[in-house]
């Protein structure tokens, strides 16, 4: 329950200490720069004993509760990690995922979330007027820290998105390796775009296309529901489609998890090569034993590696260039650039502006953007220079974004040149969500 606090209209103080934490909600002092224009004026003098009601201003969710969320995150991360690494019980992990879905999903309504926190962090890095609450920073950092030690236990049962999709993986199908590879590029693109748009202050696209937030809130636009519906439906056949092929946070977790200290193993002891687990993973994250030698001889591999290494800067540059060419398309998402285009279209309409601006007539059917622009008193060139600053940012951002994608692809290729040798069935440390399905299949118990 949220409390509703009232503002004393005529300076009457509300009884102090009615609640443990009393906000002094004086709205009078807010933004008095605007009030300068409003001339002060007393209210009418009533003769009947009418008491002027006070303006009700509801109080937002208490700040302390944000730290409760962090606490719950920490505890559930610990429990889930323990369940995965020590208890090795799929059923308990499942139970925890129900809890996470209930708490982070339906109770906290999907907001604050680690995935979205990427954007807050990147915006805070580039815009020092942006406030990054500590709780949001912790939501970003904690899962990564856990992953660095124990693998992606966050994905297993703490992330409400993962939990939601896990429930709907009714008929998971194994995807071919090339599909997995090609679709695997998507999260890098999503991450790159999300950081680019966040850092330029354009938009938070992860939140804009948050697939489940509408379900968590039981309230969203029709389009958002449709979006969630389609994603969940595809998740019936392609398990956890968002986590595997979209989630930008997954990229970070993937790379962190590769170097994790104690990752989940399929078997607690020695693998008996029974191959029961081979198809148990709905996420195609089990690596088969490789005992045969690579068909490529060592010198060939070394040469390929060398070529790749030499070509990495080139690849990065090519992608960077391609990204920079996208500057207009990318910047077109930004509202400031959109406004500039509209303003330009408008001045184009008054057209090739032969003659002078007229004074007496008013344009009637302006869009609201144009109306607001006119009301703001900004000049045309101000709008343009603002937009061109944004476009410039996107030019640099386009290079970085493209370079990042190029680097990611080069690294992925490099990873597939490296020699491999393993005798056991293991989980792919990067892609494994630690859901423990394979463990259930393993006949070896501790």
């Amino acid at each position, binding site marked *: 329950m949220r409390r509703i606090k009232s503002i004393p209209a005529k300076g009457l103080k509300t009884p102090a200490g009615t609640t443990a934490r009393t906000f002094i909600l004086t*709205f009078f*002092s807010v933004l008095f720069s605007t009030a300068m224009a*409003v001339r002060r004026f007393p209210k009418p003098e009533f003769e009947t004993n009418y008491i002027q009601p006070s303006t009700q201003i509801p109080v*937002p969710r208490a700040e302390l509760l944000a730290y409760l969320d962090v606490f719950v995150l920490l505890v559930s991360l610990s429990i889930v990690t323990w369940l995965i690494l020590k208890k090795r019980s799929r059923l308990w992990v499942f139970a925890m995922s129900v809890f996470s879905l209930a708490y982070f999903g339906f109770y906290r309504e999907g907001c604050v979330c680690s995935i979205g926190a990427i954007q807050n*962090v990147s915006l805070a890095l580039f815009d020092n007027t942006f*406030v990054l609450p500590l709780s949001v920073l912790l939501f970003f950092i904690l899962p990564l820290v856990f992953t660095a030690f124990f693998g992606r236990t966050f994905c297993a049962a703490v992330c409400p998105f993962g939990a939601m999709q896990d429930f709907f993986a009714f008929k998971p199908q194994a995807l071919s390796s090339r599909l997995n590879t090609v679709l695997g590029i998507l999260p890098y693109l999503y991450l790159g775009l999300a950081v680019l748009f966040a850092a330029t202050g354009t938009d938070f696209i992860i939140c804009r296309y948050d697939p489940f937030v509408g379900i968590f809130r039981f309230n969203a636009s029709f389009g958002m529901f449709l979006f969630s519906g389609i994603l969940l439906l595809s998740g019936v056949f392609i398990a956890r489609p968002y986590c595997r092929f979209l989630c930008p946070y997954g990229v970070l977790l993937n790379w962190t998890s590769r*170097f994790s200290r104690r990752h989940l193993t399929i078997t607690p002891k020695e693998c008996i090569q029974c191959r029961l687990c081979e198809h148990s993973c709905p996420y195609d994250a089990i690596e088969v034993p490789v005992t045969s030698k690579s068909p490529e001889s060592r010198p060939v591999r070394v040469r390929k590696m060398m070529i790749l290494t030499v070509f990495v800067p080139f690849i990065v540059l090519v992608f960077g260039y391609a990204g920079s060419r996208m500057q207009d398309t990318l910047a077109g998402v930004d509202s400031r650039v959109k406004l500039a285009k509209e303003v330009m279209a408008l001045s184009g309409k008054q057209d090739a502006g032969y003659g002078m601006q007229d004074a007496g007539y008013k344009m009637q059917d302006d869009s*609201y953007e144009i109306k607001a622009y006119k009301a703001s008193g900004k000049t045309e060139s101000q709008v343009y220079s603002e937009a061109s600053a944004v476009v410039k940012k996107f030019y640099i951002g386009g290079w970085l974004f493209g370079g990042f994608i190029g680097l990611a692809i080069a690294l992925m290729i490099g990873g597939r040149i490296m020699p491999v040798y393993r005798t056991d069935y293991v989980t792919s440390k990067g892609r494994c969500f630690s859901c423990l399905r394979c463990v259930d299949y393993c006949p070896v118990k501790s």
Partner: protein
Amino acid sequence: MPNRREFLNTLMRGGILAALGLLSVSLVLRSRDKNSCSNGFACSSCGKSQGCSLPAALEARQTVWQLDPSKCIQCGRCATNCVMTPSAVKCTHAYAMCGYCDLCGGYLKPGTKTLDTAAEHQLCPTNALKRKFIEDPFFEYTVDEQLCIGCGKCVKGCSAFGNGSLQLQVRHDRCKNCNECSIARSCPSQAFSRVPANKPSLLKSFGKESLEEAGRKGELNA
């Protein structure tokens, strides 16, 4: 071989953790910096308030969305673009600014001759603005939040013809405080911003304080 791999792994892990640590330390330090600059409403006491570009929000760690009525142009998108239905933005009445007029520009349709509560005279599409007789010639207007959809029609009427006491505000008991407000994204006048959670309102007002201030000045002059 495994040892070397192990070592590399540890090295990389260390690198990642160090990077994360550095990131958080720099961000925390930076925001602590902001904290120590008693920002927000204490801005004037900070001494360098003139050159400061930090928003008032920085004093508080948590922020919420709010719209600045002085920028609002009543485009109606608060009603249509909120992720919530009905919108979390509602008309809020700053009674202290209200003139209690009989002929209320926010309540009555333009051109209405008889000033009464008849349905055909009401501007509000959902009948959410209520009118109550107080005493001749004053009428009190209240907003029924259950019915209000935040369309801003009355706000436009009130600010054009009256004192502007009806204003749109984000109601924080309804607002989900999305990471990026979807109304803010489509707001044509950039009226939405993140404000400190402990000062969640941007209502404008003639204000008692400004009255007091003026009074004090008057005394000084006299």
